[in-house]
């Protein structure tokens, strides 16, 4: 295990539950690199997880406080936590694409509307892969999956003329970015900005699923070749010189379907107030005797905290 792992994660999580070649660890690593880069410690972050592949990778992995939500409800739990916790504590949520853009989308929109200070990391593997590879709301059009054996005819949130981040932007999210799990420094930098934003931030990561998406939709078992297909999702020119076997993957699903830009999508950090802070200030006007002490201290840490 590397130094980053030893510093922030529990040793029982190695080896992780992800398949060989799954990109979830890459997403996890980038989040940890951003936390490390900001100098945050184990005690500064509360880590929430959804379910599915993304939730299982990060479930109970953070050495500090962490919690697991039911499918799509982790934002609702985090909203409650945000109102209870002091604002110095960061809330990081790692969820999957079905969790965020499917069953949990409405919870997500309401967190964005309230601009609650939390960082949502959406690890997107183009479908419901932990349950056997059914199509989801971000599956490429035309993809053959277990539940679309003749090719997907439905339009997902990442369709040719749709973008789910547009909805979140309209709902009031103050920081949005999209990356590939293979992106290096730019993705870590954007994660740092997302963590620093005193409001709702979401970073959408697309990562390779080799077991279901790779083997069924791309009909390929060679992991580095699947990785190359994912690299060409944001860079259609990639892989011109990689020969016939790679062309076969591109013919199966055209990686140019996304037509979306990678990197920073929307940055309005600090432009809207965080509802949890407004709520705390509002309740303090009714109960001046219980207003928060002026000097920063640990909430509920013994004498003096409560009258």
């Amino acid at each position, binding site marked *: *295990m*590397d130094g980053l792992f030893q510093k922030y994660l529990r040793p029982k999580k190695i*080896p992780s539950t992800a*398949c060989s070649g799954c990109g979830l*660890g*890459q997403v996890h*690593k980038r989040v940890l690199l951003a936390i490390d880069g900001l100098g945050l410690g184990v005690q500064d972050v509360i880590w929430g997880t959804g379910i599915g592949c993304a939730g299982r990778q990060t479930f109970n992995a953070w050495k500090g406080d962490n919690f697991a939500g039911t499918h799509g409800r982790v934002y609702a739990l985090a909203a409650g936590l945000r109102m209870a916790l002091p604002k110095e504590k960061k809330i990081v949520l790692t969820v999957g694409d079905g969790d965020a853009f499917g069953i949990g989308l409405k919870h997500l929109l309401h967190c964005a509307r309230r601009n609650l200070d939390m960082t949502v990391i959406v690890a997107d593997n183009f479908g419901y892969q932990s349950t056997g590879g059914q199509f989801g709301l971000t599956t490429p059009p035309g993809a053959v999956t277990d539940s679309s054996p003749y090719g997907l005819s439905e339009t997902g949130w990442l369709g040719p003329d749709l973008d789910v981040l547009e909805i979140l932007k309209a709902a009031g999210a103050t920081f949005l970015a999209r990356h590939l799990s293979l992106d290096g420094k730019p993705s870590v930098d954007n994660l740092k900005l997302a963590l620093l934003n005193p409001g709702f931030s979401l970073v959408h990561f697309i990562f390779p699923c*080799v077991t279901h998406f790779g083997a069924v939709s791309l009909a390929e078992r060679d*992991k580095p070749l699947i990785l190359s297909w994912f690299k060409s999702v944001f860079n259609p020119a990639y892989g011109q010189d990689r020969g016939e076997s790679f062309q076969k993957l591109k013919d199966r699903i055209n990686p140019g379907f996304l037509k979306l830009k990678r990197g920073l999508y929307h940055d309005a950090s600090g432009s809207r107030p965080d509802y949890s802070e407004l709520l705390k200030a509002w309740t303090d006007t009714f109960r001046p005797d219980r207003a928060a002490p002026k000097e920063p201290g640990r909430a509920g840490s013994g004498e003096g905290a409560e009258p």
Partner: protein
Amino acid sequence: MDETFSIELDFEACKGCGYCLETCPENVFDPGPEHNAKGYRPPVVARPNSCLGCRSCFMVCPDFCLEVSRVPD
């Protein structure tokens, strides 16, 4: 002037995906001969002297099992 780097590979944590072999620009890794307890075949660091210290393998490794560090002179 030449900097040297050491690459530590956690044999038991590796899942043998082969991304580091694919990514390394200097071909530092070779496919490994042995299986670990989980049944995967981790690569071996065959040519550590060719390492540039770019950390591409660290960034691409999904299993927290690679560490690239500069060897002090």
